[in-house]
């Protein structure tokens, strides 16, 4: 079954067409990397899936209109501004989204942040905050999780741990992940499928087939080299 089906999707912001009639499917239980240059429409695509922008076309989640399926979606935004004056603990922040105390503690353990339970969220580092936002995205047992540049504030070691968490959740709970990323050198190591977006869909398929320098050249309109580094990570983790 497809977790996500998109047909002839067009999204306009004012007069400008940001997404120009794209179609693709994402099967249930896989990890998809969504890559593309700045301004390609990646974040707009995720926000359209969660119902924030009007569109033309069709968006279906598990064969139903996406607006009916919002509670099955977890979402980690690209930017999250924390109100530094608001005394809100990590636990309270998660509790706004989920009443189940046991589940909150499970998630905090999963993301290795249980010791920060009573810590004000405004006092966390960027990386720690990303972890908490990721925790919130998986809190209500979603079937599909959209992550918009989740590694943007996380150091290299943290990134590897983060990818491991994503992989484990994907493996153990069959959660479908769509991850927007600029870290193209590590996509090979964690994604099953790649979508290349630059307003149009440039590529759509398994990483091995489509994650080629030639495709990247077409996507970014310049020379891109894939360093062997990513291969090492893949070998190590598999």
């Amino acid at each position, binding site marked *: 079954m497809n977790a996500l089906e998109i047909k002839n999707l067009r999204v306009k912001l004012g007069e400008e067409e940001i997404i120009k009639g794209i179609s693709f499917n994402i099967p249930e239980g896989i990890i998809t990397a969504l890559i593309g240059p700045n301004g390609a429409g990646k974040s707009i695509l995720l*926000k359209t899936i969660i119902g924030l922008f009007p569109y033309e076309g069709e968006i279906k989640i598990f064969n139903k209109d996406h607006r009916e399926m919002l*509670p099955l979606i977890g*979402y980690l935004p690209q930017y999250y501004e924390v109100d530094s004056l608001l005394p809100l*603990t990590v636990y309270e922040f998660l509790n*706004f989204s989920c009443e189940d105390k046991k589940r909150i503690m499970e998630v905090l353990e999963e993301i290795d942040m249980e010791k920060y339970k009573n810590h004000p969220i405004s006092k966390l580092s960027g990386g720690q905050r990303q972890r908490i936002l990721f925790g919130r995205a998986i809190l209500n047992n979603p079937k599909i999780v959209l992550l918009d540049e989740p590694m943007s504030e996380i150091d290299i070691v943290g990134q590897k741990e983060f990818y491991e968490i994503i992989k484990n959740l994907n493996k153990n709970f069959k959660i479908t992940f769509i991850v927007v990323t600029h870290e193209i050198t590590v996509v090979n190591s964690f994604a099953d499928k790649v979508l290349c977006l630059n307003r149009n869909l440039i590529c759509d398929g398994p990483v091995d087939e489509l994650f080629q320098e030639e495709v990247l050249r077409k996507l970014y309109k310049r020379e891109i080299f894939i360093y062997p580094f990513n291969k090492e990570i893949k070998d190590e983790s598999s």
Partner: protein
Amino acid sequence: MNLPEIFSYTFFIKSLLISLWISLVFSILGIFVLIRRMSFFSDGLAHSIILSLALAFLFNQNFFYFALIGGFLFSCLIYFLEKKSKIYSDALIGLIFVFFLSLGLILMSQKAGYQPELLNFLVGNILSLNNFDFFFVLVVSFVILVFLILNFKKFSLVLTDKIEAKIRGINVDLYEFLFYILLGSTVVLGIKIAGVVLVTAFLILPPTIASLIATSYRGLLFFSIFFGLLNSFLGFLISGIYNFPISASISFVGSIFFFIFFVYQLLKK
């Protein structure tokens, strides 16, 4: 007056109780006003109520009927214009409240003679509440309080993170609209007690003091209610003993608490 003498007057106890009650509603709602940085909204709304006051005078009707309608209209106008126009919210509030206020003053000028009631509305006079006002404030604020408590987490999420609220299936537009209406109605209820000039202080002081002390959201709620009630109680006592205006005394006590904790915070750093 001394303390035992103050508490021997029924009207004083009655006024103190209604003041404590309305402070409770204000201190909870004030947290959301603080989060959404809407203190100017409440200030603008309070000033725009002068139009309702003028109409109530001209038609010789109870202030609250006109004020609730006026507060509702002002809240709706700001809510929809913020969504539809490309003007900054504070500029919008400034423009609309000036329109309401100026029209109110023009209408007011048509009523001949000195209007002592006007001063009551500007600085508030809880002792001017008649039995109907008392009952009206109690019932409406009770409905607001119950609604706020039942939906506290939903409001918290909508006002801190609209996207997450939407994903969690909350009708964000509806809750935002309801928040504007609740805030508008609460400010209206507080005007006879706190006055146009000081009603925002009743709303903002308790959560602001609380935000200086609290280390959690629960703490923010607790201290906001605590200082809301304490400001009212001490303000009432000072007002009774020294014969000061009540709303000014309550606001003054709150301001003193604020400065104490503010300086404490500065020294702590």
